């Protein structure tokens, strides 16, 4: 085994197990999350209802109507030994066009003020970063995108919004992401993309997948409207 990461597995509720690969999301830990997630996709284990990759962790929900949490804990431990050097599929580069600020990004001002920089600094720093997708979570198709410049880190809202428009680009803590569908949400909204990134009827054909590289490209209102209508 060439992966240098931990593998701690503990119950998170009476129907879930949390696998933690490390305390922090280091590159090795992130790789372990990718590898184990792909292993679970390619080798579905009987008795697992769902798995939820996160930062440095995977939450596994157990089909407790048919098996026990303890039994799946053993199976997952065994799967970790069996993992070996599985090949990961190719990752893609996805370009996301963004109209920053205004009605599309009502929290751009807040992100700027919180970090003591101007709104155009926020746009500049956000769009020059190199990002990759750590995992899909929160709501259907929502990519958690890593690589945010620490100068843009802004805590989540204390009271989440009940409605965030679809295609909003947002910052939550040290993370950035895109809301694929209208949903509630607690992140700071800084812009919007005119592209539909996710079709709920075909979740496996999503534009953005775990491990993809992402680039944000600023566009103006005119281009935004044109692309939105096309």
């Amino acid at each position, binding site marked *: 085994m060439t992966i240098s990461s931990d593998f701690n597995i503990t119950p998170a509720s009476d129907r879930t197990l949390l696998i933690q690969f490390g305390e922090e999301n280091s590159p090795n830990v992130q790789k372990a999350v990718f590898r184990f997630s792909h292993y679970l996709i390619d080798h579905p284990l009987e008795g697992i209802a769902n*798995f*939820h990759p*996160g930062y440095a962790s995977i939450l596994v929900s157990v089909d407790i109507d048919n098996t026990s949490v303890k039994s799946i804990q053993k199976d997952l431990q065994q799967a970790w030994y069996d993992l070996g050097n599985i090949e990961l599929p190719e990752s893609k580069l996805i370009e996301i066009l963004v109209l920053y600020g205004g009605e599309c990004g009502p929290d751009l001002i807040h992100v700027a003020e919180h970090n003591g920089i101007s709104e155009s600094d926020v746009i500049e720093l956000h769009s020059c970063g190199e990002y990759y997708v750590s995992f*899909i979570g929160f709501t259907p198709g929502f990519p958690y995108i890593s690589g945010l410049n620490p100068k843009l880190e802004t805590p*989540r809202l204390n*009271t989440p919004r009940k409605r965030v428009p679809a295609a909003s680009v947002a910052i939550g803590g040290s993370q950035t992401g895109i809301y694929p569908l209208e949903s509630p949400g607690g992140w700071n909204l800084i812009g919007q993309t005119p592209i539909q990134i996710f079709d709920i009827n075909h*979740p496996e054909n999503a534009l953005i997948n775990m491990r993809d590289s992402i680039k944000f490209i600023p566009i103006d209102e005119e281009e935004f409207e044109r692309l939105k209508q096309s």
Partner: protein
Amino acid sequence: MSIHVLKEGLQTTVQDFGRPGYAHLGISTSGAADTFSYQIGNKLVGNDSHDAALEITLSGGEYEFTSDACIVLTGSEFNASVDDEQVSIWTWINIKKGQSLKIRSSCDGARCYLCVRGGIDVPLLLNSRSTHLMTGLGGFKGIALRKGNVLDTYQSGNNNSRVELINVNKIQMHLDRKTIRVIKGMEGDWFNVDVWDLFLNKNFTVSQSFSRMGIRLEGNHIQSSQGNEILTQGVPLGAIQVPGNGNPIISFVEHQTTGGYPRIANVISADLCRVGQLKPGDTFQFELVNFEAAEQLYNEQMKFIHNLSAS
């Protein structure tokens, strides 16, 4: 057979056991909010355990049946009648062709299930017939039923006998929503002894912010001593998350698959049906149990459903 929606309820959706297998794509399982009542409903009319039913929330609406049908209402008691004759829950209702079932408001908890022999006929989407309301996925066009909608039902393909329920009191015990039992959450240690004391010994009230995705609670300010954010991680069904404003949220069947708020506790699986019956204004207390007790309580609940035998 078809069911015509003559009058819509507050939120009536097609539900089954849910849609597992897609959490890594951000899709939570959805499915019946109170699977205990849903499962018993299917059992009573002789359905297979995964046949789809209608989940009715707070007020029911009016439904006309185009053929004779055997149906049952389970869960919370609603003020319901067929042609102005009052009908009971947990027992068969024989509806004649052209008759309509009126379901007014709940006299008890949040939800009841209308199970029809054969189950509701909507397309399978990602292996489930359940509606994920928050995203408009599955069920009947991804929506709550509206006046004028027509639902088809399946001809039952099995030879299951119907089941007659003898002891309704035993059922009520499983649905008693004055107490919700929990086990300690992943960030349970982020909350000090005083906060835990508040959490377990004072009443919480269910706020108006109440949905299949989550239920916000009010009444006690629950504050973490180690911050309001965790490194984003998978959220278990029934996790009690505590955002910075101190009002806990129970994550429910349409919950976010991952989240960043610390989790003080997690509702045990046997009491998720009680959460499905919580309605705005309800007051209740949490009670702490350990993992082994939680497992045992769920196994007992499954056994209880399993042992409801054919009459």
